[in-house]
């Protein structure tokens, strides 16, 4: 469906993205993940032809965005970051304009506007000025625009940014309903959003593609390195003594004391799963485990780990 071949873009002295290569197959729903400023938006702008790369190319269904930009852009529905819209047009006028600009004609225009308005639940605001629409509506207007000429590929840059929880839910449901007919690339910096929608993740950091794989493999990679949090029914001293005897525990730290027992946070030695070992050790020592689980990693921590690992690999 779409291939990014060594996309590189530099802004003056600061670098934008460098050598981003991946391909997305038909029907996939891929999430771009990365902290703000990592290069997600730049990559998307290169894919849509808004920006031209210093090096590399993006190819959509065998059409190069550099060689035949008009044809390539016809295949893409794009929702830019912050969803810019013309405030002083009505929703209907805006969609009419976008339909015409994207090459629809005559009856088709009216039909498509009705279709997408229905689909994105914006039919009730068609006569309203965009400037007076709520953020949730505006987001759906942007998605309606992306869908208006029924392109095979949708590129959505942070589609749920700045929405309230109900609107986020609504927008996600809308995106999920599009999966059947469209290939979708979306970006987000929220891990749970990826899990809710995407099947594959592209992790971008400091302008480079750091990880490309299914969410399961990503989760596995992240989870195995994760620390274990355990609460034992004993005093802190005994707990510490017990844990220090477990071979695969690299180090452990006492956590603030819970109402009962003592809590610890354990770091495994070889990024393996150490829960089983902890269980048997405690069983042998007759120390009841009140709670045990993998520490949920924040996205930031996950990033730190993945990027640190990358740096180590490069060094060795």
């Amino acid at each position: 469906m779409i291939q990014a071949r060594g996309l590189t873009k530099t802004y003056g002295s600061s670098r934008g993205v460098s050598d981003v290569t991946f391909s997305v197959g038909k029907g996939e729903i891929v999430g771009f993940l990365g902290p703000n400023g990592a290069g997600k938006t730049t990559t998307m702008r290169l894919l849509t032809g808004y920006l031209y790369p210093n090096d590399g190319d993006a190819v959509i269904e065998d059409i190069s965005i550099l060689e035949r930009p008009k044809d390539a852009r016809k295949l893409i529905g794009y929702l830019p970051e912050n969803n810019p819209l013309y405030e002083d047009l009505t929703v209907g006028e805006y969609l009419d304009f976008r339909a015409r600009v994207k090459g629809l004609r005559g009856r088709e225009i009216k039909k498509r506007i009705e279709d997408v308005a229905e689909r994105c639940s914006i039919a009730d605001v068609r006569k309203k000025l965009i400037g007076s629409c709520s953020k949730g509506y505006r987001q759906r207007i942007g998605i309606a625009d992306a869908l208006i000429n029924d392109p095979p590929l949708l590129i959505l840059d942070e589609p749920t940014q700045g929405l309230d929880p109900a609107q986020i839910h609504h927008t996600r449901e809308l995106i999920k309903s599009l999966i059947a007919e469209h290939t979708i690339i979306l970006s987000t910096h929220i891990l749970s959003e990826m899990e809710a929608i995407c099947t594959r993740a592209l992790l971008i950091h400091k302008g480079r593609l750091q990880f490309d794989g299914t969410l399961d493999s990503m989760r596995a990679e992240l989870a195995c390195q994760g620390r274990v949090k355990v609460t034992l029914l004993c005093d802190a001293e005994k707990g510490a003594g017990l844990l220090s005897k477990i071979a695969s525990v690299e180090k452990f730290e006492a956590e603030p004391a819970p109402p009962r027992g003592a809590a610890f946070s354990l770091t495994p030695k070889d990024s393996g799963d150490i829960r089983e070992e902890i269980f048997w050790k405690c069983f042998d020592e007759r120390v009841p485990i009140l709670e045990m689980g993998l520490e949920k990693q924040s996205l930031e921590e996950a990033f730190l780990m993945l990027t640190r690992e990358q740096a180590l690999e490069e060094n060795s």
Partner: protein
Amino acid sequence: MNGVLAIIRKELSHYFFAPMAYIVMGSFLLMNGFVFYVILAAVSRAGSAGASPMAIMFGGTFFFWLITIIMIPVITMKLGAEERKQGTIETLLTAPLSDLEIVLGKFSAAFVFYFLCWLLTFVYVLVLRAYGEIDWGPVFSGYLGTLLLGMFFISIGMFTTMISKNQIVAAIFALAILTMLMGSTLFTFIMSGTGREIFAYADLLGVMENFARGVIDTRNLVYLLSGTCLFVALSVKALEAKRWQ
């Protein structure tokens, strides 16, 4: 082509759904009405027989130039700058349109607006006709010249709005270029030889004088049209440069 038409429609609705268009049009008519009245009053005095009011109207007064070089930047200033400021340029540049189509659409919309303003002044011609004979030739060539001059100036305004993010900056920049273009006539007084010839050729006052007299000189046509093409091309390049930034 469809894309160009879509942009023209959108820009015209931007014009007419905002008070700006009516203010510009209203002021234009007010000022021109005043000018027309003064010209009529002057021409109808004894001793000025033979002068055609419309010939004076087209470029014959200081007001014509003042109105034109202020009005055109006001018409064009929003076209590109506002898209940049609102960020809508991103949806525009990722639509299946060429940069030329975008520029031509916006250019044509501004021209249609300018054309409408001048169309309303045709009432003056009808007024004149009610009171006497009219020599139609110079009237039409005068309108033709005014429209061609408008195209040239609009293309300059187009270029400045394409390179700035702020519409006021775009307008001031356009005003500066137009003023210098007008003022370059002064070089004919201080230069000699080829330099003088070039500036004499580029003298817009002279160009308009020809049109107002009913003379359609190919050199004048070529000058105005090639100037328009140059700035349209520069606008396209300015838009393209945005993608390389």
